[in-house]
């Protein structure tokens, strides 16, 4: 099976909410920065007052590669897209872009989140906002 995350205390709630079908970003109550990865303090002002806020699930492709070789669990899907998605809220997140033709991916392509069931967990994935085929 494809791997899933082993959450740590920093990330447990973030992954639990993904399992519940909700993408969130960390938010600093002191300086309002929104950031990922989730952690116990703000990477800008150092405040410990951080919370997870729901994200819209919308974003755009910041950059990507098309993997032509993959680890065993992924190999039969090659070529597949590994992207960094710029969430509407600001932070970057790694994801696959679930798409038949990798050539359709472009810089700043609008995408939206979907949740892939993988064993007991869910994995955040992105698809083009607009049907591309």
């Amino acid at each position: 099976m494809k791997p899933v995350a082993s959450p740590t205390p920093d990330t447990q709630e973030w992954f639990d909410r993904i399992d519940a079908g909700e993408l969130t970003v960390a938010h600093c109550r002191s300086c309002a920065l929104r950031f990922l990865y989730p952690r116990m303090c703000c990477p800008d002002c150092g405040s410990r007052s951080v919370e997870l806020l729901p994200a819209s699930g919308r974003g755009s492709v910041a950059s990507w590669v098309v993997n032509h070789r993959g680890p065993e669990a992924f190999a039969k899907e090659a070529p597949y897209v590994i992207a960094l998605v710029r969430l509407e809220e600001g932070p970057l997140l790694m994801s696959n872009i679930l798409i038949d033709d990798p050539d359709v991916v472009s810089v700043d392509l609008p995408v939206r989140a979907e949740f892939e069931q993988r064993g007991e967990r869910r994995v955040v994935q992105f698809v083009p906002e607009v049907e591309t085929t």
Partner: protein
Amino acid sequence: MSLRGAIAIVGAAESTRLGKIPDMSALQLHVDAALNALADAGLRPSDIDGVASAGELPNDVADYLGIVPEYLDATNVGGSSYMLHVRHAMAAIASGLCSTVLVTHGESGRSRVGMQPWAPAPQSMMGQLEVPYGPVGAPSLFPIGVRRYMAEYGMSEEQFAMVPVVQREWASRNPRAKLREPITVEGVLSSPVIADPIHLAHCCLVTDGGGALVLMSAERAKDLGAAAPPVYVLGAGESSESSVVSGLASLTSSRAIERAGSAALVQAEIAHSDVDHLMIYDAFAHVPLYGLEDLGFVGRGEAAAFVADRNTAPGGALPLNTNGGGLSYTHTGMYGMFAIQESVRQVRGTAPAQVEGVDVSVAVGVGGMFMSSGTLVLGSEATLG
């Protein structure tokens, strides 16, 4: 107190062999290189009182050589670690913590003898945020910003392919380089696609090998009487950023390279035009392009054309990666040591592809996927002024 020129490299050597060395462990490669560097300096293990290494622990390297050190540096931030070791040794020697530091690298990157298998821990940020999406380690993750760089700056596939083409030209002048046959832009673009836009020819080698340095104060170095002249450390800088690529502030530049490079150039009191020779870590072909811009040798978005126009090629104004680099010379995994070795050879005037009149050489290391960087400015005696 300026530490410019305060310490010198008095011994520098690589492992006796490079490439495929299935009969030696990673630790043996550290030691093989260490013995070669000590011989280069005319010293014995008992002359060493400080040990720094990454990959293997410095205490293990010290014990193997019978050294009971007074200074240990186990800094491991990936391939740039050795630049940091030199910087830390500069401070340690200048402040009297120790007098003679041995820095070692050894990695059985190809044969994997005495090495743990590469796999990010499932609870690491990489394990949690990246591994579920199917990267094949560095070839998928390191170049992930290249598509954005191409879109923002208009770099063409053909310009990008010139990085490995030019470095192969340097490698063809170096009998110790693993890949010496000339390649063309067409050859690069027709090599297998690994992680588009990265082809096989944009990727570094995977080899076994080692390297080591011996450092002491400039004052002692002058009286040492080693066969090769001392190479002075004029400046050094270090920095780090995120170990996951989604945590990087920019996908088209590196804050770590920028910050480390700037600190090194300022400490060395040099301008870009003073640099005779340059080494920039090249695990993948885009890294030297980012480095040229982050260090300020060219403006943003200008590096690809700079390379394609042969400025870094043999005969160009800014010779870059003259050993052939990680792409063509050797790449054990943490390549930074080999960049330093080539800078030392160029300043000494003993490189296989020697550039004429090198007094100032800059060696830039990068660790992880732009996770860390270290820069050294090395100079000949003429630069001490």
